[in-house]
C-alpha cells in the first residue's frame, strides 16, 4: 500500500499548494477556575447520576466496603493500595470470567472538576481496561491532589503513550425517543470515593433528572 501512501500525500501537497504552511498551533482557550475545585468536582460527578462519597484518608477502606453489595464478587487491579475484603486480584481474567464479576475497585490518574470526569491511564493501581468495563459496578478512589479544574489542566498531566479512558458518569444512551437511560454496556453504577482531608459527607443524586 506504500504507493497509495505516496499518491495520497502528493494529492494533499498539490491541494495545499496555495496555503502558507507557517500556521501556529491553535491555542486552547483557558478553562474554568473554580475556587473550590473539590466541591465542583463532587457536584459535577453527582450531576451525572454517579454517587460521590467524600471521606478522610483513614476512612477509605470502610467507605469502599460500604459501596459494595454484600456477598458480591469483587475484582481489584494488582497495584491497588486500598484493602478490599474478599476481593481477588485480576491476573488476566477472560472476558467471560469478568462477566461473572459484580464489582471492581480502582484508583484513577486524575479527576476533572468542570466536566465531572475521572481519567484512568490503566497503570497497576487501575488495571487493564477490561476490568473497569465488564463488571456492573465501578468504585473509583480519587485523591484530592489528583483533581484538576478543567480539561486544559488535565492534558499536560496525561501520558498519550498509555491507553486512556475518560469516564463521566455511568454509561448512558438517549437513542430511544431521546429519553436518557443509564447503563447500556458499561457499568450501570459508578461510585466515586473522594479522599480529602477530614470531611465525611455523601452527595448522592438518586432521582435527579440529568437528561
Amino acid at each position, binding site marked *: *500500500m*506504500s504507493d*497509495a*501512501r505516496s*499518491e*495520497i500525500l502528493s*494529492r*494533499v501537497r*498539490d*491541494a*495545499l499548494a*496555495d496555503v502558507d504552511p507557517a500556521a501556529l*498551533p*491553535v491555542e*486552547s482557550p483557558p*478553562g474554568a477556575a473554580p475556587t473550590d475545585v473539590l466541591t465542583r468536582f463532587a457536584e*459535577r460527578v453527582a450531576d*451525572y447520576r454517579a454517587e460521590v462519597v467524600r471521606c478522610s484518608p483513614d476512612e477509605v477502606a470502610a467507605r469502599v466496603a460500604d459501596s459494595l453489595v454484600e456477598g458480591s464478587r469483587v475484582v481489584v487491579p494488582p497495584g491497588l493500595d486500598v484493602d478490599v475484603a474478599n476481593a481477588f486480584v485480576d491476573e*488476566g481474567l477472560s*472476558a*467471560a470470567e469478568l*462477566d461473572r464479576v459484580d464489582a471492581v475497585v480502582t484508583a484513577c490518574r486524575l479527576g*476533572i472538576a*468542570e*466536566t*465531572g*470526569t475521572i481519567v484512568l491511564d*490503566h497503570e497497576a493501581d487501575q488495571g*487493564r*481496561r*477490561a476490568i473497569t*468495563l465488564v463488571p456492573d459496578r465501578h468504585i473509583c478512589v480519587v485523591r484530592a491532589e489528583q483533581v484538576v479544574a478543567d*480539561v486544559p489542566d488535565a*492534558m*499536560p498531566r*496525561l501520558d*498519550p*503513550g498509555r*491507553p*486512556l*479512558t*475518560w*469516564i*463521566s*458518569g*455511568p*454509561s*448512558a*444512551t*438517549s*437513542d*430511544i*425517543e431521546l*429519553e436518557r*437511560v443509564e*447503563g*447500556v*454496556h*458499561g*457499568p450501570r453504577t459508578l461510585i466515586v470515593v473522594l479522599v480529602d482531608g477530614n470531611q465525611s459527607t455523601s452527595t448522592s443524586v438518586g432521582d435527579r433528572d440529568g437528561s
Partner: protein
Amino acid sequence: MTARGAVVHWARDAADANRVIVDVARTHAVDEVVKVKSMVTQEIDLNGALADAGIAAWETDLAELIVQLGDDLPSHILVPAIHRNRAEIREIFLRRMHEVGRPAPTELTDEPVVLAAAAREHLREKFLRARMAVSGANFAVADTGTLVVVESEGNGRMCLTLPEVLVSVVGIEKVVPTFAELDSLLRLLPRSSTGERMNPYTSMWTGVTPGDGPQEVHVVLLDNGRTRALADEVGRQALRCIRCSACLNVCPVYERVGGHAYGSVYPGPIGAILNPLLKGTGDPQTDSLPYASSLCGACFEVCPVRIDIPEVLVHLRTQVVDARRDDSVPKPEAVAMRAAGYAFGNARRLRWAERVSGLAGRALTRFGRSRLPGGRAAAGRLPGPGAAWTGARDLPAPPRESFRAWWRRTKGGRVDE
C-alpha cells in the same frame, strides 16, 4: 503509530479500505466482527463489503442496532434511529433479535429502559465472543499516534478493548497536530452535539499496549475524496467538521424532510456540502444537495468549528451550474431562464410576452375549475412536464391584463375602470 506496534494502511478509496479490512478478517478466519458506530464505515459501505465476503458485521451502538435490525438507513448523525418510536423499536427487537443472536425477552415492553436492557443482553453475547472489531475514530493525533473515540454507551469501549484484533478506519481529515490540541475539541464536541459537559466515555489508545486490549491493531488512513475537497479553496473548510450534528438540529429544511431525504450517509447541512465535495459534480442526487437549503444561515451560527456552510452551498451551486453550462440538451430551467432573459431584455418583446400571458390567463381560467383562497382563478392541470407541478399544487392563472396595459387603459388610474 507504527512505532507503537500498529500496522498502518493507506486507502485511496472505499474499495482499497474494504479490501484491507476483509483481508485482516480472512487472515484471522473470523466470520463476524463487532462495530463501533462510525460514519466513515457507512461511507465506504463496509458492512456490504464484509457481507459479500461472508462475514457478519454487528452494529453495537443501540441506535445503529435498531437501524440494522430494521433493514433501514440512519437518519441522523448522532441519533441514527430518531425516526423510530418506542413501539416500532419493540416490534423490531421481537421480530429480528432471535434471527441473529440472543432473542429479545418475551415480556419485552416499549419502555426505553427495558428496550435498552434487552439490547445490553443481546449485544453482550456478541462482545464476549467477538475476536475482531472495527471502529472509526473521532480524532487522530499526529505527534503521538493516538486515536480517540468519543461515545456514551460503552459499546465503543467493549469493541476497542475485548477483541484480539482491532481495525480503525480514519479519514485523513481527522488528524490533529498535537495531543494538547485535543483539549479544545474534547470540550467542543459533547457541548455542541448533546449539550453535555462531557460525554460518558472517551477512549484513547496508541498502538498496542502489551497485556491490555487488542494485541493486533490496524489503522486504515482513508482519502476517498478528501483530497479532492481539500483542493477546493472555498469547500476545504468542510473538512474541519467534527460530526457534532449541531447543524442538523437547527436546520429548518432537515427538520421537515428528515435525514433519509438527503439520500446520503452525511445528512443535513453538512451533508449537503460534504457529499458534493467528496464526490464532485455529475451525479444528479449529489448535484441536488446544494439546493436543499434556504440559506438561512442557522447552521453557520451554531457550528463550533466555524464552517460557513451557506457560503460553501452557494459556491457548490455555481459548480453544479458551470458543470452543465455546455450540455448539448440544456435543462428546462436553463431554457426558461434564457427565454425570460430574452423577453425582459427589450420593451417590445416584453409587451408581446405580456399579451401572450394575458391570453393564456383567459384560456386557462375558462377551462380551470378551481379558485384559490381569495378568489383568484387557478389554472387546471397542465399538460406535459408541467403536470408534475399541477398534480400536487394549484397554479395561479396569469392575470388577464398586465400592469402596463392597465396603466395605459386607465391613464395611470385617473380614469375609472
